[in-house]
């Protein structure tokens, strides 16, 4: 069977090369791209989907970060555009607009679960008990000292707070193409920044801008545009570095990494579900409504992904580190899919 397929394939290859200009070739499997945090989960769901439904092909899952995925998603309608965009944050109004402008009007939002963001360091180094204000003070460009804003003078963690280890400040954070960065900015930097009364005085965008200015002296803040493995490699090269990871990545590398507590809470699947651990975010994927009924299995895949058997407690995705939705949330998401509820309208 496989052999017949391959020889047929060769014939097709030869034929296809001759007719290069054939436009828009039909597609019979789902194409996904976007957030690298969602990628492992989406890949597992895709594989299980292909294994469960003999009549559908397994979806193909690409990466590219939340922003990159959105850009591809909003390119338009047709077989050469993707059907689903993975996102580790909700779609922004600007992105919805650009989608509408390209004719993508029926965007169905599907929340799949949650992920914690952890501050991990090497196992052989000291343990950290961090608070958002420590993190902000470590990497902000200007910090208030004795009521005046001065250029960040801190070189070691214990200069910020006596309780922290005497260790050089090196924070490896995701670059802005990652959805994780946005959550880091919002839930760590801005929260930490607001605890300083000089910054709390500021309002709205001015505050946001001032809080998110990072120091630029070499080596204290390292932005990583690639995957978490790149962050891990940084930690292996620089013993003092602290990396920002997704909780699920940490759980696959327990032997090398340890995580800092945030406000005294250790990140686990339980503390993130309960909301005790402060730095977590929902994960999403977005379905292109126009492709439902054209690309076979699209709506079935969405339902399969959020079903309790695939992403609930003790499911394959749970084992892979996804923090599941509550039963109420799951029911709501499933009904949204069923009713084809679109965002931004």
């Amino acid at each position, binding site marked *: 069977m*496989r052999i017949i*397929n*391959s020889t*047929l*394939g*060769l014939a*097709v*290859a*030869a034929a*296809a*090369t001759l007719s*290069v*200009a054939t*436009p*828009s*070739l039909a*597609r019979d*499997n789902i*194409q*996904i*791209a976007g957030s690298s945090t969602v*990628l*492992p989960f989406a*890949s*597992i769901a*895709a*594989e*299980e989907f*292909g*294994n*469960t*439904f*003999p*009549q559908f*092909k*397994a979806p*193909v*899952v*690409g*990466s590219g970060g939340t922003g990159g995925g959105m850009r591809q998603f909003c*390119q338009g309608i*047709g*077989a*050469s555009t*993707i059907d689903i965009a993975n996102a580790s944050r909700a779609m922004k109004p600007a992105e919805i607009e650009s989608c509408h402008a390209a004719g993508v009007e029926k965007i169905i939002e599907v929340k799949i679960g949650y992920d914690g963001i952890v501050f991990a360091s090497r*196992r052989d180094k000291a343990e950290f008990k961090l608070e958002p204000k420590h993190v902000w003070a470590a990497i902000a460009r200007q910090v208030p000292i004795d009521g005046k804003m001065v250029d960040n003078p801190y070189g070691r963690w214990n200069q910020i707070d006596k309780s922290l280890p005497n260790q050089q400040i090196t924070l490896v954070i995701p670059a802005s193409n990652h959805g994780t960065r946005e959550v880091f900015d919002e839930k760590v930097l801005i929260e930490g920044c607001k605890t300083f009364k000089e910054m709390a005085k500021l309002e709205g965008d001015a505050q946001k801008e001032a809080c998110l200015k990072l120091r630029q002296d070499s080596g204290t803040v390292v932005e990583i545009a*690639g*995957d*978490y*493995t*790149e962050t*891990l490699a940084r930690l292996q090269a620089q013993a003092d570095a602290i990396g920002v990871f997704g909780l699920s*990545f940490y759980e*696959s*590398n*327990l*032997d*090398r990494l340890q995580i800092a507590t945030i406000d005294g809470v250790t990140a686990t699947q339980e503390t993130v579900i309960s909301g005790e651990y402060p730095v977590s975010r929902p994960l999403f994927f977005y379905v292109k409504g126009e492709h439902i009924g054209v690309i076979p299995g699209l709506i079935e895949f969405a339902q399969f992904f959020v079903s309790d058997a695939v992403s609930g407690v003790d499911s*394959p995705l749970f084992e*892979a580190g996804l923090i599941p939705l509550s039963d109420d949330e799951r029911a709501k998401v499933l009904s949204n899919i069923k009713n084809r509820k679109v965002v931004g309208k």
Partner: protein
Amino acid sequence: MTTPNSKNAERLARVAASLKKRHAAEKRFRFFGVLASLLALSFVAIFFVSILSRGLPAFWQATFNLDVYFDPAIIEVEPRPVPNPGESPADFQQRDYAWQSQVGMVNWNRILENSLIALRPDLEDERRTLRSLFTSGERFALRDRFIENPDLLGQTVRLKLLADANVDVWIRGNIDRDLPDAQQQLSPRVRELADAFFATDALQMNFSTALLVNPDSRSSPASAGLGGAFMGSVYMILVVLFLSVPLAVAAAIYLEEFAPRNAITDLIEVNINNLAAVPSIVFGLLGAAVFINYLKMPLSAPLVGGLVLSLMTLPTVIIATRAALKAVPPSIRQAALGLGASKVQTVFHHVLPLAIPGVLTGAIIGVAQALGETAPLLLIGMSAFVSTIPGGPLEQSAALPVQIYLWQGNELRNFFEGRTAAAIIVLLALMLSMNALAIWLRKRFETRW
């Protein structure tokens, strides 16, 4: 007062003195030359030793050798449907899918667990732990085996079943076995059972074909393989061969044998040489813009990858072919023309056959280069996760070098470091054999003038 004799002696002394210096300089130069070669060789050696030492063990995987009983009490399915007379193929397909789904609903995990419980009846109450010893893909492997051969029902078959990736890491000692429980990926009980089964014949390190024949897998990392990426690369290489080699050879023959020498052909020649030096990522950008965005060709398809790589290979093969044509002595052409052959006859009957070894070498080296190329493929979406083996050049797939890149980024570091190195070995073996083929062809058909 200087005599000619003393002048001579002085000269000789000067020569003798400088001779020593010149000898020393030569020795120094030779020494540095040897040193440089040794340094280069040692880097190659370090590279191979590190890749081989990490990659070769990955071909052996923790594998269960178990008697698996296809228990009719668990596999409660009807016999596989056969086409009824007068039934349309679509209807039959529907019934067959329904049957396959029904087979998929069978609790295959239970059959896996039972095969271990048959060895250790005392573990009846620990089914969950037993299940976690197997990689999750094995239940589908059992199902597919049954769908292929429903007669297995009620039979006991000796099967090799892959263990979970973390079990493999534990048995192998890739994770420090002395770490406390909190830092281990597996629970103490799973580790204990893995060791117990490893002490008997039930769990062994076996040579595993999974790495070579399976497609990539995320849900069942232990069964992840290079099969899909390999077929993707094969399709791409075929597209490159069928597209770029004929085009490049035709272009080279025209430019070398027929084209007039003028400003336009000079310009073309300069541009071809420049194209050969263009970084491959630029071809990727071009491919994404033209093939994907403008011509609306499918993402992640080997056809598009092949087209992009063809663009990249064209100048290389043109240059190699022209060099091979140039090497054919003019006397051959003059003789053919002198006997009344036309220009086309001269080229195709005499010059080209003599240049074939050079053309083939150039083509193979160009194709081998294309085989190892990663950057342009990332830009046309070939870095996606594909869990199936492509059946043709229009179906989505990865490629070998891209698969290395993807595995390198997998979060299960302890397991995939070995897998990545193994994939590098496979890719290197392919490249080396292609280069060897090129050398062999050259030696076999080379003509000395």
